[in-house]
């Protein structure tokens, strides 16, 4: 009997109403206290194409993607053959037995539930017949996996609160499937779910929702964006939470502005205009949007205007795989725009960090007077994650950075917008409208002197460019530093990772440990890299770097910025659009160490 350790996959047709039933299933497991990682694998399409919902259930909290399916709920004839093939030997196939299907595998167990027939008999409205098939297979699974039925029923009641008429037929559909399974199969199967307290006080939330909420708590007032998968839900979450939390009680009017811009260029332009004028403003986009925003990012870098940008990365290049995940915009973002430009990047690895880093990003943007790019990805942004509850320090204010008000302007002898008064490379700025006589300046993307005046004097330009480097060095001490694994500094081997690969790395380290391979780990959380990052690399003979792109982009950045011998960093890469698995990391690390391939491949997943 396997308890709380399996991968279940639902193969559906998109637009058929399966999403809410599948989410109900995942949430029910979470409610039973068992860590769960649901992932939508969806097409760039509205209706009619195959879509999958993959759900890893793991009592130990290993929630990275894992290859091999233990239970397949195959509801889509279009993808049937491949879906059946994906099941691990000994696994289960749950399907709609109303239709006769040929199943050519004898190493799996089949569970036929006549879902269409059951729903057609019970319900009369065609749309209900269609939708309730999904609820009915969830009902069947509650019996097959021994799930707490009261929890599931309770969730239905919660979901339809206020639309109470819908509760009874939904519960009815659940019971249709459940009772059929109880009657015709030995329940539970030898894979099951058991209530646990492994979830603790964690929550289940999408990264984009946490990021949008973070912007509310960060005091963002202006959001300008252009719809693009997979970033759209950041702006939508911000707006949704603002409607609940940011309406002026007296007047009922909004203490925020959300503009759906005409394109990404305009979106970032509005963000720069608003930040220039002293409002905290952000945009959210994905790869193609980054390309479009690049010119403006260069302006914000050079004219030193704060901006916050969420890049929810998807598969590139070009339009690429809009509904798949990657970490392939590192170079494009770090050096976005022509000329010598560099940008601060922050890499969240779970929704809780999306929330924290959203708050951090606005402080950093204003402290450093430059764009801050938060590098999330589709996997993190659009899937629900089991994550720490969202928290903010009660005493935490806004760090508005170096901004002079009218009184301070009266006190300074001479205001120069780009004067490095404090020696940290960060100058002082003023908002328009502050003082009738002093503090006005001309913001420009042309070369300028310390007083914001246009100049074609090359030596002045060199001075300004060097101060910008100095400012970037100051940033190293302000951005979130790296996080080290607990066994740090005990091995000659090191492994660096960042962002969402964090969901697979600890499991991979465990697997490697079992083979007697000990590796120190470091999770990078931002660019520019702090001194700690360099010393970690320096103190290990060989360092692996896990990335989800083809060209090992973070490796290039490390080699380039820290002047590291490229031979010392071995890339561990995955860029097929699916989140990297622990096994993939382990295999590639072993390969990098010269371990025998056969040893590596020995059915690690199936044997688990």
């Amino acid at each position, binding site marked *: 009997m396997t308890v709380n350790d399996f991968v279940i996959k639902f193969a559906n047709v998109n637009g058929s109403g399966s999403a809410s039933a599948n989410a109900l299933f995942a949430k029910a497991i979470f409610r039973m206290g068992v860590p769960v990682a649901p992932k939508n694998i969806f097409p760039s399409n509205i209706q009619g194409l195959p879509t999958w919902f993959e759900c890893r259930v793991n009592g130990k909290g290993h929630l990275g993607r894992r290859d091999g399916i233990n239970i397949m709920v195959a509801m889509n004839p279009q993808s049937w053959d491949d879906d059946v093939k994906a099941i691990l030997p000994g696994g289960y196939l749950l399907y709609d037995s109303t239709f006769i299907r040929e199943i050519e595998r004898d190493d799996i167990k089949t569970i036929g539930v006549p879902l269409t027939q059951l729903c057609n008999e019970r319900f009369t409205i065609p749309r209900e017949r269609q939708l309730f098939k999904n609820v009915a297979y969830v009902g069947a699974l509650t019996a097959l996996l021994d799930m707490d039925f009261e929890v599931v029923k309770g969730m239905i009641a919660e979901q339809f609160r206020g639309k109470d008429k819908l509760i009874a037929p939904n519960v009815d559909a659940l019971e249709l499937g459940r009772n059929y399974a109880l009657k015709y199969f030995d329940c539970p199967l030898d894979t099951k779910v058991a209530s646990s307290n492994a979830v603790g006080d964690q929550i289940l939330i999408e990264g984009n929702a946490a990021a949008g909420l973070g912007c509310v708590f960060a005091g963002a*007032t202006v959001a300008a964006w252009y719809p693009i998968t997979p970033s759209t839900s950041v702006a939508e979450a911000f707006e949704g939470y603002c409607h609940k939390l940011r309406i002026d009680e007296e007047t009922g009017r909004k203490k925020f502005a959300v503009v759906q811009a005409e394109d990404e260029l305009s979106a970032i332009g509005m963000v720069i205009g608003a930040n220039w004028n002293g409002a905290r403003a952000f945009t959210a986009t994905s790869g193609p949007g980054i390309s479009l925003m690049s010119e403006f990012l260069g302006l914000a870098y050079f004219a030193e205007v704060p901006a916050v940008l969420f890049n929810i990365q998807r598969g590139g290049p070009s339009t690429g795989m809009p509904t798949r995940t990657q970490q392939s915009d590192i170079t494009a973002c770090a050096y976005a725009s022509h000329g010598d430009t560099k940008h601060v990047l922050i890499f969240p690895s779970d929704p809780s960090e999306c929330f924290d880093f959203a708050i951090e990003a606005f402080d950093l943007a204003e402290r450093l007077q430059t764009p801050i790019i938060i590098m999330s990805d589709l996997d993190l942004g659009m899937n629900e994650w089991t994550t720490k509850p969202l928290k903010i320090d009660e005493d935490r204010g806004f760090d508005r950075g170096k901004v002079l008000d009218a009184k301070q302007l009266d006190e300074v002898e001479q205001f120069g917008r780009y004067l490095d008064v404090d020696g940290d490379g960060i100058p002082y700025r003023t908002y328009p409208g502050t003082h009738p006589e002093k503090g006005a300046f001309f913001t420009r993307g042309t070369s300028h002197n310390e007083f914001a005046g246009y100049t074609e004097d090359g030596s002045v330009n060199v001075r300004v460019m060097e101060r910008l480097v100095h400012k970037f060095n100051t940033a190293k001490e302000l951005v979130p530093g790296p996080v080290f694994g607990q066994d740090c500094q005990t091995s000659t081997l090191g492994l660096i990772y960042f962002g969402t690969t964090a969901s697979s790395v600890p499991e991979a380290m465990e697997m490697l440990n079992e083979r007697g391979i000990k590796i120190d780990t470091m999770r990078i959380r931002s660019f520019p890299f702090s001194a700690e990052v360099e010393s970690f690399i320096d103190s290990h003979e060989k360092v692996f770097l896990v990335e989800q792109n083809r060209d090992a982009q973070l490796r290039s950045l490390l080699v380039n910025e820290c002047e590291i011998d490229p031979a010392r960093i071995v890339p561990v890469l995955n860029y097929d659009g699916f989140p990297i698995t622990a096994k993939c990391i382990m295999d590639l690390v072993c390969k990098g160490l010269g371990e025998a391939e056969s040893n590596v491949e020995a059915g690690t997943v199936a044997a688990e």
Partner: protein
Amino acid sequence: MSYITKPKFHHPKLPRNDLGLTRRDYEGAMSTLCAGCGHDSVSAAIVEACFELNLPAHKLAKMSGIGCSSKTPTYFLSKSHGFNSVHGRMPSVATGANLANNELKYIGVSGDGDTASIGFGQFAHAVRRQVDMLYIVENNGTYGLTKGQFSATNDRVSLGRKGQKNAFEAIDLAAMAIQLGASFVGRGFSGDKEQLVPMIKAALSHKGFAFIDVISPCVTFNNHNGSTKSFEFFRDNERSITATDYIAPKETITADYKEGSMIDVTLHDSSRVRLRKLDANYNPSDPAAALQHIMKHQALGEVATGLLYLDVEDTELKERMDMVEVPLNSLGVKELRPDLTALEKINSSLR
């Protein structure tokens, strides 16, 4: 171009406005444009308008894109913040600035390349959103900084300096602005201060998107025979529909006009524009009539000028977005950060 630093001293008896400021207080750095450039006259008209309106310069922001026209904000209102953004993208920066603080006045200065070509999309959407600003296009039909290529506002019949023919139709920005929903649309001429200054004053008193297409000849690249954007051509072919007077809130004008020959429109700050109609049948609050008027003159090879369209009832961006009265940039932690119990509630709802 001039290359000396502008002296700061001025005659002690220069006239002062209600704020005690002279015209010199509204000027900027020395212009670096070609001698005789129409754009410098537009800058002078802006200075004059702001002086006469008694505007505190620091409560105004100057926005621009890239090009000769976009350089001009350096040459007026040195006590205002300015933002020289990227080519064709001034509208979005101005929109963001406006969302952050709607209490400032915004003057956007752009050119025909900046607005009618690379920035056509952003222009259209700023108009459509009714961003509360004055948007001036200094229109000369040519790309000056890159040495005289045709722009998208160059008339099809208008020849290049070396007699080159223009194969494509011109974009009429005033007509576009009316179609896209601007609530104040005028056309002026850099060489006609009498017409331009009151129009700028009225536009700065208007709430909503005010657009003025100013024909501003390029003396270096587009002022030759055969050009329809030359001083000479414009003087011969301009057809003004209205003569505009600006009447400050408490001012009274006693001159008599023939019945039906003028309209007074009260603006948002209770000042008025008086339109002396040169065509008795013209109705400036009818967008279809305004478009017809523009096109009628176009067909005759003429250019319709004056305040072409005005709607004081229309709402602007902030109102349409239902935002609070106070500027968003004035709100602090107390007003913006929700209670921590709200966060706890959200956490609970996600379990």
